[in-house]
């Protein structure tokens, strides 16, 4: 058996074990909140599966670690031990250790570390004994003889259990030459004979040296279904043999070999009905294609209606196929949401706050790539909400609110986007503190005349932090600016709405997929550019007097109470034949992580879906451009990198 074939199941094992750990964690948390005893079984089953698979797939360290946790769970399950906070705590930390072990397994590193050794010791201590060394216990050596007499009388029901005496005797023959004698004493009269029952017995002489345990092993499945005696043949000289070296069950080195071929490969587990739907669609596509193919031979104008119908069908299939293929990369956001109950519990305990976590829209599906990258920004928002947003029970009571704060995670579709909201009913943003800090940092000169919206935007500035004391929770050197950059790298935006005393809502808007974007096509001279719809705030036409020119040459215009820089795309990209007078063209106000800017273009051509082609892969990285797409007429249009151009805009504003 090649290890290459088995390596694929090792990968599956890691994936399902990580899912099992998620289940263990969420069940432990539910148990902590007084969930029912059925949860213990769920937790046990998950641990049991990991243990069973770990040794099979070449992770003996993980098997022995899980064995400790499983033993503890077994006592709880069997009612020998009541589940309490310290046990839940320890099991939660065991889950963390196992996650770490799986991560190291993927990276091909040694599985045990000081943390896992420590927790393993605690598990053993909780069970009231020292941590076992993890070695296979030596087998007790059986006695040995030159020849054996075996008396074997199966019970009547043995055949029904699937054990065939003939098979057992044949197996015994594998140990050496046999002399078999049937015992017919219990054979009933033919009229009373039930052929599904066993009536015979055998006396067998094994005429070869063998160990007792090897003989017993032949009968290990039927010991309770037969009368069996295994005795050394009296005439033979019995010499006790030295105990043989214990056989190792699994050859550790061989098992480890399978791990080498285990470089992490990215894979998606797809529900079978999605695949079936895809196959079905391809089937329909083939039929439509065959129908259209008939027009190739001869075209008769009378069949025009049929051709149109075929083309309509083709368009529909293409659209459905596109959606289905995208759907394959789509996974429910639940896998991200599920890590929060634990995080919220740990954080709120640490900070002495009472927090109720509500999850909504867990089944909302996201592109796998987006899903993998949205976790960190969300963790940051949740940490912030608990650390800075929600108040302590005392302060909540003083503010006339319930002592328990609510943190809500919500995911839903809106248009072609996924919206993820992190909201809390805490104190909301503290305008004065933010303004004071921003002035301190030199970000602004004063808060007068600034809209609440503009003040809120300040927290997304690099290096901004309002916490008087940096806690070990939020203060990890990562600010809201990083959250915004991470989200913007995914083609999304983060906005905040906050009301003093009532709480804050952070809204992350993400594209459904990174492969296709909805965009507005804008004409600039002879070129077309695509501006991602998600980042467009508004399009406005300016009168010449609304444009202010700065001494350095930068241009600003007033938009909803703030001055925004104007970026002329024809200058940025060096397009010829573009409109120059501000009143002839159009300003597209876009929002990116650098704030808002107005992009000056000739005009809008239309809205379309653009399939993103990587510019880096086909050419090289170009500042201000995130990719390219092919328009319906076959020409290439560049996609504007809004995050990039807004950063350019800020620089020109500063100039």
């Amino acid at each position, binding site marked *: 058996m090649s290890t290459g074939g088995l390596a694929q199941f090792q990968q599956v094992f890691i994936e399902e074990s990580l899912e099992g750990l998620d289940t263990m964690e969420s069940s432990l948390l539910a148990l902590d909140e007084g969930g029912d005893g059925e949860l213990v079984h769920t937790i046990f089953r998950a641990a049991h599966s990991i243990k069973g*698979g770990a040794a099979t*797939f070449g992770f003996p360290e993980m098997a022995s670690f899980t064995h400790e946790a499983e033993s503890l769970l077994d006592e709880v399950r069997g009612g020998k031990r009541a589940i309490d906070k310290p046990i839940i705590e320890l099991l939660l930390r065991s889950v963390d250790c196992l996650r770490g072990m799986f991560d190291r397994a993927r990276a091909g590193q040694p599985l045990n570390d000081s943390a896992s050794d420590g927790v393993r010791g605690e598990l053993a201590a909780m069970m009231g004994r020292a941590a076992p060394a993890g070695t296979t216990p030596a087998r007790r050596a059986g006695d040995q003889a030159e020849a054996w007499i075996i008396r074997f009388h199966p019970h009547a029901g043995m055949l029904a259990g699937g054990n065939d005496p003939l098979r057992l005797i044949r197996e015994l023959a594998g140990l050496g030459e046999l002399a078999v004698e049937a015992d017919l004493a219990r054979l009933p009269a033919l009229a009373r004979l039930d052929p599904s029952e066993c009536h015979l017995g055998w006396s067998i002489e094994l005429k070869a040296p063998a160990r007792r345990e090897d003989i017993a092993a032949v009968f290990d499945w039927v010991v309770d279904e037969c009368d069996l005696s295994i005795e050394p043949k009296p005439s033979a000289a019995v010499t006790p043999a030295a105990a043989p070296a214990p056989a190792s069950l699994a050859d550790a080195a061989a098992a480890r070999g399978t791990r080498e071929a285990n470089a992490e490969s990215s894979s998606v587990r797809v529900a079978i009905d999605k695949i079936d739907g895809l196959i079905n669609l391809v089937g329909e596509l083939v039929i439509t294609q065959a129908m259209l193919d008939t027009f190739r031979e001869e075209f008769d104008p009378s069949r025009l209606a049929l051709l149109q119908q075929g083309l309509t069908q083709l368009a529909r299939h293409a659209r459905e196929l596109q959606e289905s293929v995208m759907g394959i990369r789509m996974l429910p956001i639940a896998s991200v949401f599920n890590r929060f109950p634990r995080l919220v519990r740990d954080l709120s305990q640490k900070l002495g706050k009472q927090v109720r976590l509500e999850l909504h829209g867990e089944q909302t599906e996201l592109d796998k790539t987006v899903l993998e990258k949205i976790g960190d920004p969300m963790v940051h928002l949740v940490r912030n909400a608990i650390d800075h947003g929600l108040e302590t029970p005392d302060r909540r009571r003083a503010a006339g609110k319930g002592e328990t704060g609510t943190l809500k995670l919500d995911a839903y579709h809106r248009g072609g986007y996924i919206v993820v909201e992190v909201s809390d009913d805490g104190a909301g943003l503290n305008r004065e503190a933010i303004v004071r800090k921003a002035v301190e940092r030199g970000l602004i000169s004063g808060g007068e005349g600034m809209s609440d919206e503009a003040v809120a935007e300040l927290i997304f500035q690099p290096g901004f932090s309002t916490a008087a004391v940096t806690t070990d929770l939020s203060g990890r050197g990562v600010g809201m600016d990083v959250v915004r950059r991470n989200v913007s790298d995914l083609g999304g935006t983060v906005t905040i709405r906050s009301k003093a005393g009532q709480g804050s809502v952070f809204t992350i808007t993400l594209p459904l997929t990174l492969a296709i974007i909805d965009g507005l096509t804008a004409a600039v001279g002879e070129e077309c550019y695509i501006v991602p719809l998600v980042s467009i705030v508004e399009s406005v036409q300016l009168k010449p007097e609304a444009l202010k020119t700065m001494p350095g040459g930068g241009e600003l215009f007033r938009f909803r109470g703030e001055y925004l820089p104007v970026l002329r795309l024809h200058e940025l990209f060096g397009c010829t034949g573009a409109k120059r007078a501000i009143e002839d063209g159009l300003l597209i106000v876009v929002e990116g992580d650098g704030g808002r800017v107005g992009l000056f273009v000739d005009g809008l051509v239309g809205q379309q879906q653009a399939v993103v082609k990587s510019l880096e892969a086909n050419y090289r990285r170009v500042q201000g451009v995130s990719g390219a797409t092919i328009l319906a007429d076959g020409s290439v249009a560049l996609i504007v990198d809004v995050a990039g151009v807004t950063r350019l805009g800020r620089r020109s504003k500063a100039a």
Partner: protein
Amino acid sequence: MAKILAVDDSASMRGMVAYTLRGAGHEVTEAENGQLALDAASANGFDLVLADVNMPVMDGISMVRELRTRPSYKGVPILMLTTESHTDKKMEGKAAGATGWLVKPFDPEQLLATVKRVLG
């Protein structure tokens, strides 16, 4: 070769068993819990059933007990895939009608040797 039903809720374990047995030329049907295994057993005849003990929906022990009530599965070898820490499960499985067991962890060679043992 033989028609074998492999029952385990763990996709990796089930996959490994099925892959190994197919490699040896057997025809393998997979089921992810006892209930689905019973459904499969109703629709097909099998020469051998390999079943995990701990499974959601219906565990391996209940599955064996139910299977043995069916005349067509009297005498068909059924092996429990069990872990060494649960010796009592072996006996519980036997009492429910299992033929024998295969102790996890096992490697493909051990699996094939055991299957050969029951199929002869």
